[in-house]
Every structure is written in structure tokens, then in C-alpha cells.
């Protein structure tokens, strides 16, 4: 396998509605920012790998066809990945495989969602032939699973509230975020309306417009860039069916297997000690303690203790800060959300994460999940090759 590194990172401003740009303008903005970051022009890109969540979120079928011009793809290969909510992560990994296979030297990868064009809740809930109509959206789908986690672990009732506050305080350090809530309090979250018990309004992710892009290059080209290359030390994907007999929906096998795979590639056997920070897909507050266990940062049933002790908080000086960027709870352009996690992990390692930088970070995890918590994509990036 050829070495591959992130050499450019570009993001847009995340907002409820980016009425100032078209869909093409949105993806172009992120891509241009990534090229500027890498000190490159469009001619330097050999192929473009694009990803987003379901086409129904904007109502544009196979939008790579329409976006070819905005991403300078005429005459180039262009691939569209779609693996549900994990797609932002999967797209980065598929882009990396273009370089790691030795087929391309430098590629651009872009993911986006312009949720204001449509209604994600509707898009996820239209009735299907041969199936009972589940008019739930994502929050309704995951609520009983979070409730089951609370029952099993005996976690304090306000663990989710703590996560919601912690990620918003992190997020207030990141000017790109959709939600800016520097004054948020535990009481404010507790008093926000209950949406899908146990998830309150302020414990849920927003619906955002936004795009994220990265340039990934081989070893030779990576060293030519203006910024230090961020080396991809491991990448893994796993899938399992939405339902099967004996499936553990709280602590899914696919997530555990995917983490074990990516850690083995990166030479990690104690993630809490060996990783400096993590950007993890937490769209609903309770998923932080659940993923702390699923990803091996805590024993089963103990994840909430890390959250409540402040181990995952930058503000409390925690030893393993999670979602220093503010995470999905602060900005959620769904198709891009996974790639934002991957890109923010790379920013930490590169030391240019601004006010949400973890001092001295050298190795970080990026994580994304999707579907009924059944699709996973993860990478570990490091300053060391």
C-alpha cells in the first residue's frame, strides 16, 4: 500500500440556510478552500470523489452529474459514494484508496448537504411498499436505543445534558459552526422541549447547510505542500444489517470490529492513552457515552463516567477530548458531517485547529456512522508516517 496524506482541508461556513449560494456554489466553496489550503490550482487534481447522504435531501438525483462543472471534473474521473450517514467518512476512505492503490497521485474529495433545500425528516419517512410506515426520522429511531443504554448502564439521567453543554462550549471556539452557544447551561438544556424521550431539543443536532473538502496526495507530493502532511495511518469500514436476531443495537458489533481494525492498522491498543483526541459522530447527546464504550475508550457500562468526569472536555482539561470542533451537535450538514470529523481530526494533528486546538496533538481518530447505527467508517491520522 502506498502512503497517503491529507495536504489540504477546506470547509464552508455552516448555517441553517446558505441562501447566498447554490448547491454548486456550496461544494465549490469547500473545494476552493481545500485547494487554497494545499497551495494548489484545479489542474493539480487528478480525480474527484464526492459523497453525500440520500439524494432526496436536496431532490437532485446522482448530483455528481450536475456538480461536474463546479468541481472542475470535465475530462477527469469522478466517483460518487453513498453509505448513509457514514458517507462523509466512507468518501474520504474511498478517496484515499485512489492514492493508496498507486492509481492516482493527488485527488480531491468533497462532501456536502444543503438541508435547507428539502426536509430530511420527510425524506427519511416516505412510505414504502411491503413495509410498515415508520414516520420517525432519525431521532425517533434512535431514542429507544439510547433509553436502553440508560437502563443497562445505570448512567445518571443528566449525562446527555452534560454532553450537549460540553460540545456547545467546544463549538463556541469554532467560528464555522452553525450553533454558537457560548453561554449554554445545564439548566437551559434540561428545560428545552422533549423531542424524542430521552432526547431534548438541545440534545439533538441541528439541520445545516455546508460542505467539507480535502486534498489527499501520495508521499512525494505530500511533502511539497505548504503545510505539514497529515498521514493516514489506518482506515476501516464495516456494515451489518439493520435488524437480525441477537443484534446489539446499543453496542453494535460492526462499530467494535471497525474500531479494532483501524486501531490494528495504526498500532493502537489503548485508544484512550494513545490517541490525543477524537472527532466522533455524536448527533444525539447520549451517543457520546455509547460510542466511548463501542470504540474502546471505556469498559462496557462505564462510558458515562468519562463524560461526567470531564475526561472528554477541553474546558475541563480532560485527558481525551472528544469533538473539540463542537461536533455534529453544533453543525450537521449530514452528508458532510462524517468528513468534517475526519478533517477536524486532521486539523488537530496538523496543529491548526485554532481556538479548539488540543495542545500537542499528534494522533487523532475520525469516526462516522450511519443507517440504523449499522454502517461505520473510521480513520486514524498522525503527524508520524
Amino acid at each position, binding site marked *: *500500500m502506498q502512503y497517503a496524506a491529507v495536504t489540504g482541508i477546506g470547509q464552508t461556513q455552516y448555517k441553517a440556510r446558505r441562501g447566498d449560494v*447554490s*448547491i454548486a456554489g456550496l461544494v465549490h466553496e469547500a473545494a476552493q478552500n481545500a485547494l487554497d489550503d494545499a497551495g494548489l490550482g484545479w489542474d493539480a487534481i487528478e480525480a474527484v470523489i464526492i459523497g453525500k*447522504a*440520500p*439524494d*432526496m*435531501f*436536496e*431532490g*437532485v*438525483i*446522482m*448530483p*455528481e*452529474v*450536475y*456538480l*461536474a*462543472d463546479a468541481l472542475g*471534473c*470535465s*475530462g*477527469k*474521473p*469522478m*466517483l*460518487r*459514494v*453513498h*453509505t*448513509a450517514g457514514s458517507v462523509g467518512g466512507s468518501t474520504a476512505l*474511498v478517496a484515499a*484508496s*485512489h492514492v*493508496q*492503490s*498507486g*492509481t492516482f497521485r493527488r485527488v480531491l474529495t468533497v462532501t456536502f448537504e444543503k438541508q435547507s*433545500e428539502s426536509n430530511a425528516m420527510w425524506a*427519511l419517512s*416516505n412510505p*414504502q411498499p*411491503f413495509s410498515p410506515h415508520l414516520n420517525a426520522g432519525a431521532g425517533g429511531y434512535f431514542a429507544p436505543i439510547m433509553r436502553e443504554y440508560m437502563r443497562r448502564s445505570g448512567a445518571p439521567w443528566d449525562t446527555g445534558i452534560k454532553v450537549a453543554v460540553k460540545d456547545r462550549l467546544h463549538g463556541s471556539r469554532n467560528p464555522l459552526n452553525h450553533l454558537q452557544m457560548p453561554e449554554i447551561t445545564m439548566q437551559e438544556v434540561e428545560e428545552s422541549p422533549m423531542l424524542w424521550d430521552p432526547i431534548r431539543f438541545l440534545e439533538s443536532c441541528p439541520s445545516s447547510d455546508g460542505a467539507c473538502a480535502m486534498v489527499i496526495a501520495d508521499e512525494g507530493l505530500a511533502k511539497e505542500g505548504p503545510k505539514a502532511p497529515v498521514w493516514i495511518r489506518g482506515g476501516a*469500514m*464495516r*456494515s*451489518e*444489517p*439493520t435488524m*437480525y436476531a441477537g*443484534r446489539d443495537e446499543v453496542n*453494535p*458489533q*460492526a462499530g467494535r*470490529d471497525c474500531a479494532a481494525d483501524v486501531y490494528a492498522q495504526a498500532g493502537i491498543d489503548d485508544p484512550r492513552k494513545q490517541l490525543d483526541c477524537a472527532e466522533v459522530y455524536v448527533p444525539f447527546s447520549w451517543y457520546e457515552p455509547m460510542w466511548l464504550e463501542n470504540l474502546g475508550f471505556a469498559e462496557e457500562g462505564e462510558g458515562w463516567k468519562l463524560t461526567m468526569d470531564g475526561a472528554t472536555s477541553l474546558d475541563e482539561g480532560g485527558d481525551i477530548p472528544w469533538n473539540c470542533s463542537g461536533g455534529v451537535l453544533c453543525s450537521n450538514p449530514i452528508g458532510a458531517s462524517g468528513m468534517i470529523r475526519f478533517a477536524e481530526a486532521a486539523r488537530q494533528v496538523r496543529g491548526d485547529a485554532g481556538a479548539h486546538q488540543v495542545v500537542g496533538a499528534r494522533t487523532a481518530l475520525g469516526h462516522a456512522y450511519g*443507517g*440504523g447505527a*449499522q*454502517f461505520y467508517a473510521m480513520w486514524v491520522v498522525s503527524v508520524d508516517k
Partner: protein
Amino acid sequence: MKDIAIVSFAQSDCRRDAGACNEVELIMPVIEQAMQAVGLNNSQDVDFTCSGSCDYQQGAAFAFVMGVDALGAVPPIKESHVEMDAAWALYESMLKISMGQAESALIYGFGKSSPGELPTVLSQQLDPYYLAPLWVDSVSLAALQARVLLDRGLLSEQDMAAVVARSRANAKANNPHAQLAGDVSVEELLAESPWVAPLRKHDCCPISDGASAMVICTIEKARAWGKPYAVIRGIDHRMESHNIGARDLTRSVSTELAAAQAGVDRGPVEVAELYAPFSHQEIILSQALGLDDSTEINPSGGVLAGNLMMASGLSRIGEVATRIMSGDVRRGVAHATSGPCLQHNLVAVLEAA
């Protein structure tokens, strides 16, 4: 990209309406057939699985998610999906094998177009601000392209009808899965009235339900399995502008680029399977690939005999591979397309081991 072996391929019949069969029921038989051909059981026996499909055919977000139910994905598997024809799922799988993270892969594509009106549905893949609101359907855009070719004298309606007559005859002779097959003369075809002028209905591919599946692996593994295989010697794909007015619709520049990169001209092309949903596009593609009378084009009848949207590109590659594995030919070219008027094209060169 490494040389990769195709060790098996299976496709369903092309049916206008698969009725109450859902996507999983379309997928399972072809996966089973492709796997059993090499003595494999389910996705646990390969290192990677990748599929191609389109949510809008089913009318549901995450149409591919239920597809995982067809795979035997317990314990969890390494799996990915492209919202493209499964020919691009093959491309992703080849990258995965070339980088050394897999030695074998299962690829499948599926589409159930019957619940909707496919040409109208496809109008929603156009620019959402300027074109999609006009509901310009895929047949009308192809008709504009055919009109340009006719007006410039680059082909005649007889040429188009000859493509259709050959497709029907080849499908009758060689393709038990075909939806449209039979003996028709050019004169009979030209006697029909235009549908979306200048296209007659027979110039357009039919709308079909179905699926196809393929197993690929490293050359070493194919030898170890001891089954006949075809080698993918070159593969490349290229995009063109979405601005139809800015393109020369009489050529397929992206196919020319992909053909050069895949190495089509590095040897004789005995057989070619081209994803040409409209008769005139077969002529454009043949020219872009530099093919002449020495190449047998679309011996299966091509997609004019049956078009499994999102699987037809993979099926074209499978059709060539099958002919190489059976020893009928030693070298062939397969093509897949996506987007209006051949906007995005993939070319693969296959050879005998």
C-alpha cells in the same frame, strides 16, 4: 491499478415489471449464482462487497440499506456503495484490491424501475435550478442529440434502425435474459412512426427490473480457486460538462479519454459491449472507441434488449467476461455510462488469462 480477475458473473432476466418482488428478492438469486460458481457461500467468503443503486428508482432514501439483507452480513462485513451504476462499484473494489486491503470482492447492482416513470424520474438529475424545473426527460435529451447527428449528416435513420435490428437478432440468438428479441428488418422498423422525434420507440432501451452480480479477485487467488477467469487489463472513467450546450454531442470525448487510458488500442478488440441506451449512441461510442467491422458489437443485444438501470454497466463488463471465460474470445472491451447524453463514461479492457 493491478490486473484483476473476474471469476464469475450472473444476471437476472430483464423484466418490464418484477411485480411484488422487492429489491432483496431481485438481488439474492444473482448473488447466490455468482458466488456458487466459484464455490463461495455468501459475503463472508470475500474480503469486500460493493454495490450500485439509485434511491429514486425505489422512491426511498437509503434504498441500498435493505440490500445488505441479501448478503449474509453477520458478522459484519467490509462493505461500500456508490450511487452510480455498479460498474463504478467494480472500480471502487479494484482500488480496494490494488491497495492490498482485499484479495476478493463481490459486486452487485440492482434496479427496480417499474414503480415510477424512469425517463421523468431521470429529469431530476439535471441542474436543479435551470433544467430540472423544466422536467426535460432523458428520452427528449437523447432525441436532441440524435437530431444533431442527423442534421449534420453523420448518420441516417437507416443506420439507427440497423443498430436496433442487430440488437434484436443478437438478443434472440445469444441472450436468454433479454426483454426484447426477435427478427425485425430495417424496413419494418422505419415503417414505425416517431415517438420522440427523431427517435422511434425501438431506438430507446426498454425499462427493466433486475440485478446482476460479479466476483473478482487477485490473479493469484483466481489461480488458487482453479476456475476460468478473465483479466481486467485496463479500466478508466471520465466525466464531461453537465452543460449540454457546451458539449459536442456528436462525439463522446470522455469515452475517447477513458479508452486511451484503459489501453483499448493495445490489441485487437474481438468483442465490445457498449452501454448505449439509444441506438444512435452505439454509433457515437463505437467511433469514440475506434472500433471497426472487425469487432462484434453488443453480441448480447446490449441495453436495447433490456436495461437494468444501475446494473447494466456491470452487466456489459460481465457479458464480455463471460465470453472470455468460455474461451469464445481472447480480448474485448466493455463500456458503462451515466448522466444525460453520455455525460460520464467508463471503459474496461478485458483479456484472457
